[in-house]
């Protein structure tokens, strides 16, 4: 594996048992992602796009195969070390903009940094970094707002800030614009593209071709298999 490679997937299989029937969602999927790439995963409904995203990020257990993230094989990691990897090395953006309902926007963003022990930072320093990220993404004004007081686009940008707070190696995004209107979608994709241009590796799942068009590479998945890769 080259030094530039951040994610390497080899013969990945994922099977679900539903009503005692085996459902092979991913079949021998192999690909790799280099540092600084922005890769989109596209495919028809039920093709296994999101399952692929969650399996390669360690959120879901693989049935067979090997996934190396920053040189570490995910199947060899314990639950606690996978949790540490998610905290320090990965960022997640979900379609539904999940946030902790009892925390303000800024507290939601800084929570992973407070939890992380990698950097020895004071609360003030963490708060300042969070505010800097919010300023960068153009949402400084909603710092102290409750999550119910902001629009969908603002909330998704707050989720991007949260995913970035610990300077992750890679961001995994599952339909980041799926629940947004066109204007907000464009704003969010603009931010993600900007982050990528600054060196953040991003893997995102989408069925929006406009979103995929902004990525450096598109993996096309059908029936659990990568059928093509468009650069």
């Amino acid at each position, binding site marked *: 594996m080259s030094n530039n490679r951040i994610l390497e997937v080899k013969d990945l299989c994922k099977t*679900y048992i*539903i009503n005692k029937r085996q*459902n092979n*969602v991913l079949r021998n999927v192999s690909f790799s992602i280099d540092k600084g790439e922005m890769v989109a995963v596209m495919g028809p*409904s*039920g*093709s*296994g*796009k*999101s*399952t692929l995203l*969650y399996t390669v990020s360690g*959120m*879901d*257990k693989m049935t067979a195969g090997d996934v190396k993230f920053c040189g570490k094989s995910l199947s060899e990691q314990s*639950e*606690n070390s*996978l*949790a*540490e*990897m*998610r*905290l*320090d090395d*990965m960022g*997640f953006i*979900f379609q*539904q903009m*999940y*946030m*902790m*309902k*009892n*925390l*303000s926007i*800024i*507290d939601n963003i*800084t*929570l*992973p940094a*407070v*939890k*992380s022990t990698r950097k020895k930072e004071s*609360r*003030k320093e*963490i*708060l300042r970094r969070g505010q800097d990220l919010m300023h960068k993404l153009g949402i400084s004004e909603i710092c102290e707002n*409750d999550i*119910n*007081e902001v629009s969908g686009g603002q909330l998704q940008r707050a989720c991007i800030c*949260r995913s970035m707070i610990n300077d992750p190696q890679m961001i995994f995004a*599952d339909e980041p614009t799926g629940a947004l209107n066109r204007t907000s979608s464009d704003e969010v994709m603009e931010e993600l593209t900007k982050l990528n241009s600054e060196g953040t590796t991003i893997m995102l799942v989408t069925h929006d071709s406009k979103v995929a068009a902004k990525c450096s590479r598109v993996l096309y998945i059908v029936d659990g298999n990568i059928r093509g890769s468009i650069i």
Partner: protein
Amino acid sequence: MKYLGIAAIGAVIGFFLSIPFGNMLLSSVSRKMYLGSDSSAAVGILCSLAVVLVILAFCWRCTRKIKKLSPIDAVRSGQTGERFKKKGLLRLGKSKLGATGFLALNDVFSSPKQFGVMTVIFTVCLLLVMCLANTGNTLASRKLLPLMCSTDSDIYITDTDMIMEVMTGETTVTEQCDKIEKKLTDNGLPCSVHAEGLVSPAVEFKGNKLSPTFLYCKDTKASDYSYSEGYAPKYSNEIALTSSVAEKLEAGIGDKVNITINEKTDEYIVTALFQSMVKLGETGRFHESLKIPDSAVSQVMGFQIDFDDSPDEEEIKSRISRVKDIFDTKYVDDTDGFVMSCIGEGVKDTINGVKVFVLLIIVIIVIMISVLMERSFISKEKPEIALMKAMGFKSRSVRRQHTLRFLISAAIAAVLAILLSTPVTRLCIDPIFGIMGAIDGVEYNIKPVEVFAVYPVIIAAATVLGGIPHSHVHEDHQSLGYFRHRIKEI
């Protein structure tokens, strides 16, 4: 219908369990008193019905929320697009707590209704146990001695045979006291012995007649006892009365009442009022200088021994065994034991037994409430738990957060219960002591370690035990699978 069924089953089980439990409680007090044979089954059935109705009433009230839900809420999953006011009270940036501690505290303050209900229940449970503990501890403590109208002595002999000798006229109070004093002195325990004699004269004031029990002891001073109003009798024609006797006679301090002893009627001035649990508060006190013939003394409380060398508590305990041997009787006690024998031997044990039983029930209730609440929390907070795990929180951090929330509720409940324990005990138990004669209340014997430490710790431990999140939080991928199941595709 579901809750009607559950409440009905619970009420039936509770009703049938109450029968042997009630019989057990009654048996411990009915040894010395005759109880009526009226059936309490009707009361039990009525109470069971009342419990079912109360539960149904609350269920009906809670289901009113169903009216507010519309079909569109299902489509939007409850999201109406409306904006709500701020929820979180604490700020992570300004807090010194770790992430887990902050989230726990913030959750408690952000959902005051939810955790408030739990806190109130735990507080009530604790108060119940604390009241029983305070009552039990007070019933066997020397703090009730003034209400027994006795002075504090080293040892008390309450042997019924020795008391009966006085009651039957076989010997007088003075002779019996002298006999005991001589015997103890001969056995190397020089002491002085006295006894509170009980006299039952006829009292009359402005046509109101009564026969209260008067206490009299020529070896003590009237000023040695406590009075709630007025001043201690100083002369032989002065008396003190309990408030209930004064009320029945319609007499007050300064009034002259007529008292007939051995067919001789004299006037006495009421100089003081006091409290007494002797003869349910229907008592009075004569001055020690009044010449009352021994034949008028119908009973004694017990024979009080004061050793000449003023021994300490440990020495007193060892002398109690010696005195038991000297007089071949087991009825020799220190002050605490004397008070207990006046109240009734089985009462304290019964109350302690009830206290332990109630504590057990409360622990079970607290655990069950914690389990139910935690399950409800986990079910409601699945997205948040999944999000925390996606962010990189370990299972033990999530468990710690959930456990801490319960611990915070229990701690708040403990503080509230500690603050309210004494006033609530007074509110609930003073009327009971009032029936026994202590109209102005009693000084409760509160054991701080037991009441303020042991019981709160037990309740907190029960809360934590019940609130420890269940295994499906531990399973990493089951929580993270929340996101998988939210995906429309598989």
